[in-house]
């Protein structure tokens, strides 16, 4: 949305709240993305990678949702689907009460408007910047595309540079290769904020950074969230970082949601065996408390050919017959805490399941 500001400049302001505080900012249900594998002489489809296989989630206004999981669990595909860089095969996305991807006949929110309100920061800070654009050109690019005059877009770029802690006079005319990794990631964050989005999807934003720089960027993300009234979807494989930054956490395994809930519930009372194993896999800084047995054996299975029933059962210490037969539905435990595991679903037939109240 562009409006004339008091000083006569057209500038972006964050789109207004439409659905009210109780309406989730983004609600996703039954999201599916399968990638075909083609082979043979005729390039026929021989198999399918079930990258995201029925993911439902909600991101509330002003919160940070952390998404964790191992490589191949579909967390980055989920991020690209949320950003609509990929079109989902199935599933529905509702952004602040409006269906995303609708057209004039059906009403709702067109993709172009959706993308203005949702922006993304990628892991590889160098690959995601255009090497032939200076920093200010990079940040001013999207506002210019959306109709802001060049000099105003540049001015805005300078403001954003200052907001992410880089002196505009020193950095605006530089090229990406002249910056360090931490500085480049700050540029990516500034670029994501240039259109005044409401939701920022952060796909492993600190994974490639050194620890001392990681802490700087995490502090910056916390500050910017307050300053610009943002909502974050924070994707990472680092459980400590996710615990630090998230309000709620979603654990993914092989394209499905294993467990989700408030951050303290997940870290203090994990219900799914996979979540417990993941938490136990964190190296301890205390050499006196070294582990002798790994919490999980083997690698995650191939998402081309996932196990039947519960997808975690092949590595699960609690697996029983029922786990191979039926897929556990996501079921609620306490307020906002849900898990997909037969062992926590009353009356599921698993020996550890709670008894159904008579």
């Amino acid at each position, binding site marked *: 949305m562009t409006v004339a500001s008091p000083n006569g400049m057209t500038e972006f302001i964050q789109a207004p709240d439409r659905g009210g505080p109780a309406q989730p900012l983004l609600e996703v249900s039954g999201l599916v993305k399968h990638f075909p594998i083609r082979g043979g002489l005729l390039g026929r489809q021989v198999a399918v990678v079930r990258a995201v296989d029925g993911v439902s989630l909600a991101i509330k206004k002003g919160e940070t949702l952390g998404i964790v999981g191992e*490589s191949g669990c579909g967390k980055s595909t989920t991020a690209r689907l949320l950003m609509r860089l990929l079109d989902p095969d199935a599933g529905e996305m509702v952004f602040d009460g409006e269906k995303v991807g609708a057209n004039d006949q059906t009403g709702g929110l067109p993709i172009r408007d959706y993308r203005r309100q949702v922006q993304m920061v990628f892991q590889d800070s160098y690959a995601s910047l255009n090497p032939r654009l200076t920093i200010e050109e990079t940040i001013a690019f999207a506002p210019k595309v959306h109709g802001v005059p060049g000099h105003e877009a540049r001015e805005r770029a300078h403001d954003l540079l200052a907001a992410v802690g880089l002196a505009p006079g020193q950095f605006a005319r530089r090229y990406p290769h002249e910056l360090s990794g931490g500085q480049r990631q700050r540029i990516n964050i500034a670029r994501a904020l240039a259109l005044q989005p409401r939701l920022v999807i952060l796909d492993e934003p600190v994974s490639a950074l050194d620890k001392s720089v990681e802490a700087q960027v995490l502090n910056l993300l916390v500050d910017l969230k307050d300053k610009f009234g943002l909502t974050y979807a924070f994707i990472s494989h680092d459980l400590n970082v996710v615990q630090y930054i998230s309000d709620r956490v979603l654990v993914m395994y092989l394209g499905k949601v294993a467990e989700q809930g408030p951050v303290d519930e997940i870290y203090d009372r994990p219900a799914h065996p996979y979540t417990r194993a993941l938490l136990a896999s964190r190296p301890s800084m205390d050499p006196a408390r070294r582990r002798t047995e790994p919490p999980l054996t083997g690698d995650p299975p191939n998402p081309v050919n996932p196990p039947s029933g519960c997808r975690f059962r092949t590595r699960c210490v609690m697996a029983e017959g029922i786990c191979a037969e039926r897929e556990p539905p996501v079921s609620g435990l306490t307020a906002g805490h849900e898990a997909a595991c037969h062992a926590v679903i009353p009356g599921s037939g698993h020996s550890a399941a709670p008894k159904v109240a008579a």
Partner: protein
Amino acid sequence: MSAVLKPAAAQPLVRARDLTVLFKTRDRTVHAVNGVDLDLAQGEVLCLLGESGSGKSVTLRALMKLLPKQAKVGGSIEVAGRDVQAMSESQLSDFRGGDVAMIFQEPMTALDPVFTIGRQIAEAVQRHEGVSRATADARALELLELVQIPSAKRRLAAYPHELSGGLRQRAMIAVALACKPKLLLADEPTTALDATVQIQVLLLLRELQEKLGMGVIFVTHDLGVAGEIADRVAVMYAGRVVEEGGVGPFMAGPLHPYAQGLLGATVHPGMRGKRLTTIPGAPPGLETAPTTCAFSPRCALAEPACLAGVPPAVPAGPGRMTRCIKVTAA
């Protein structure tokens, strides 16, 4: 460990004194390592901790003389009583793989994609021990079982791309252990792995190290990894070891301001809502070798005396050393 602390160790496995590495090309000069003293006893695990550009990987490669020609290596390096610097090419190729082996961060690029896992292991055995192909193949199978690869017999015939990341890293460890090296050099071998696989590989390395009595130098940037595997840690900054000591005392209370900053900047459980402590600024460029305390521009405790010269190694308790003039000798 610096010479001050351990004057009479019985034949250390690794002994490096005043190691320097200088990269000089037409465009730029980088003083990557600026005087590192290292000692490693038989059967000991030392973690070199540091951020990118601190010289930890270059130090590791210098121990095996793996650096490119334009690198000027100074100082003395002795591994298993032999002077690495003075070795000829043919001596080096016996030395590498025989006495010393290395595992890398990215197994996919370190393994040869056109040979099977079994062949790559057997090749190392044949080259160093001169045994027949059949004997070497049998050893390859033993090694795959040693690194706990499931259905090892079938996996001998697998190519690297057919294995998952965790199995590939295990296969690379098997190649490295093929000739029972006395010293294993590991350059961030678990950084590219998932958390659940990383802990498996760390525990495997620890188990193998104890079983085979190897000395291990393990390069990592992750304090948690050091906490799981190290006996001793050496923190590097700008090409120097700024603090060294046993892993327990170090984790309980680092002495050098940089090491303290690194520990403070690492996100621990239970830090929610608190502001993370950061180290302001960035590491120095190393176009010239630092002549003062290289950390002083970023240090909250810095004072004029820090600029008087490179801080000497101050002994600080049993087996501990730090290069900071603000730490008083214990």
